[in-house]
């Protein structure tokens, strides 16, 4: 039974790290797409949606090619920093972050585009530099839209199966997340364990939804 709790803990750890990664990268890329004008911007925007539409196993394969021991990035990481991503929980984070990225990036771009440029200009005239304007005006006004994307990315990361299995495998206690453990339990005919895992997954998801409703502010932060 402890195996189930270990899987839950691992799932949460992987999903949280993946979401944190998505938050930083998704907000940065979403902001760049919303504010800069360069040729091929819409093409880049479409390509960033690929993780949403490609089969997770295909994504996992791409990741393996890239960060595997013989992959371009993987070999460099191993020789330079002694970092191994394949068959590690960090590899699972990478896979989960990749599938969740479009949710944050899309939401962030849409949210940034709704921020009135005049309000940012007002901050400029009042003496603020670009980073201060971003953190004091743009981000607070776009925050609610971004948060919606972040929650979706977290949910997606929590349920990630295909790409994670390809990159990180299914090592109990190391890379075997909840969704993978469910699959393994059913395959092995361990119905009791499968039932517990499914119940645990469902409960976790419901709690996440409730928390989301609790913490997502009904209006802009600070309003009565």
């Amino acid at each position, binding site marked *: 039974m402890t195996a189930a709790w270990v899987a839950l803990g691992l799932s949460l750890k992987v999903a949280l790290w993946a979401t944190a990664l998505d938050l930083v990268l998704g907000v940065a890329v979403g902001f760049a797409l919303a504010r800069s004008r360069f040729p091929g911007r819409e093409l880049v925007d479409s390509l960033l949606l690929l993780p949403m539409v490609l089969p997770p196993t295909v994504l996992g394969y791409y990741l393996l090619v890239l960060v595997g021991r013989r992959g371009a990035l993987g070999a460099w990481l191993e020789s330079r920093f002694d970092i191994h991503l394949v068959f590690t929980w960090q590899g699972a984070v990478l896979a989960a972050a990749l599938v969740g990225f479009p949710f944050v990036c899309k939401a962030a771009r849409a949210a940034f585009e709704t921020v009135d440029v005049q*309000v940012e*200009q*007002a*901050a*400029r*005239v*009042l*003496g603020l530099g670009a980073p201060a304007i971003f953190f*004091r005006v743009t981000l607070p006004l776009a925050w609610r839209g971004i948060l919606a994307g972040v929650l979706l990315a977290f949910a997606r990361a929590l349920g990630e199966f295909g790409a994670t299995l390809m990159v990180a495998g299914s090592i109990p206690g190391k890379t075997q997340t909840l969704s993978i453990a469910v699959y393994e339990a059913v395959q092995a005919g361990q119905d009791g364990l499968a039932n517990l895992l499914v119940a645990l997954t469902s409960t976790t998801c419901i709690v996440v939804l409730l928390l989301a409703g609790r913490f997502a502010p009904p209006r802009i932060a600070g309003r009565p």
Partner: protein
Amino acid sequence: MKWDVSVRKTIGAGAQRFELDVAFHSDVERLVLFGPSGAGKTMTLKAIAGLVRPDRGHVRMAGSTLFDAEARIDTPPRRRGCGYLFQEYALFPHLTVRQNVAFGLVSGWRNPRADAGGPGVDRWLDALELRPFAARFPDQLSGGQRQRVALARALAGEPRALLLDEPFAALDEPLRNRLRAELAELQARLSLPIVLITHDPADIDAFADDVVHVDHGRVVAPAERFAEEHSMKSSARNHFFGTVSAVRHGTVNDEVELALDGGQHVVALVTRESSERLALAAGTKAFALVEASSIVVVAEPATTLLSARNQLEGTVVSVQPGAVNAEVEIDAGGVRVVAMVTQASARALGLAPGAAVLAAFKASSVIVGVQR
């Protein structure tokens, strides 16, 4: 010289292309840039503030150069010392009135706290009577209160000059009049140079020491300005300048035909007595005054036959809704026509910028005048 501005900038391409080429200098404290919407006023003001970078030219304020394309000077907006009032005020919707006013006084990456104080903030909250609303958010304020917050926010940084973009356009008429007086009083008290841009002639009457007329991205020539300023002294909203091209005598009335500077013709019915008093004859420089309420707007010019002698074809430039009536501005081949129609009519006719219309008025509703 308080203001020495010469800016050129081209934006867009093809049909969207807009060329701004505005130059003026002035030494008054209350300068008004006047012109119809889309004339390039806001772009000029943003170039002064540093929010728009001109392709060529210079911006000098009270002797110091803020921008000079040739000398490669481009002072960033935050060091220009200009307070700026945006058209819709552009308050920070996520911050309280107090935080909005304190915004520019706090550096760093964090917003002022909800209880941000200090003399710099309290002084302006008091000066603009905002104390009772200090804890409110912008969407909990009326239009007039929002304008005062925007003013307090701009003034809190102790700017060297104030730039106001249509400060009264978003307000209703009675409030507009009160705030015009308040602004004039505030300006006098602080003796702060102000540049105000507007499309409303009433702002000129209430505020301007000097006026720069801007249209189609250019400053309108001083000769035309002189003529326009003269006609501004009439209550009629339409003033057409031209030359008498024909006088046809009747028994009671004369029919006077005026060839406008833009090429159009206006026919007026004038009594024999007046016609002789004004010595109207072919070649006389004259102008025609028409009340905005005397002008009928016809939405389908191609399929309509009217008895009115004056029918100027044009396109709607703007529709400014008021309490009951809407003011429709029409560009009839370079001649500006202002018509007052009811809101209901404006809606029923689908009057919107770009619509092809006919501005029709009777020959008997035209008053002809000459300059002494």
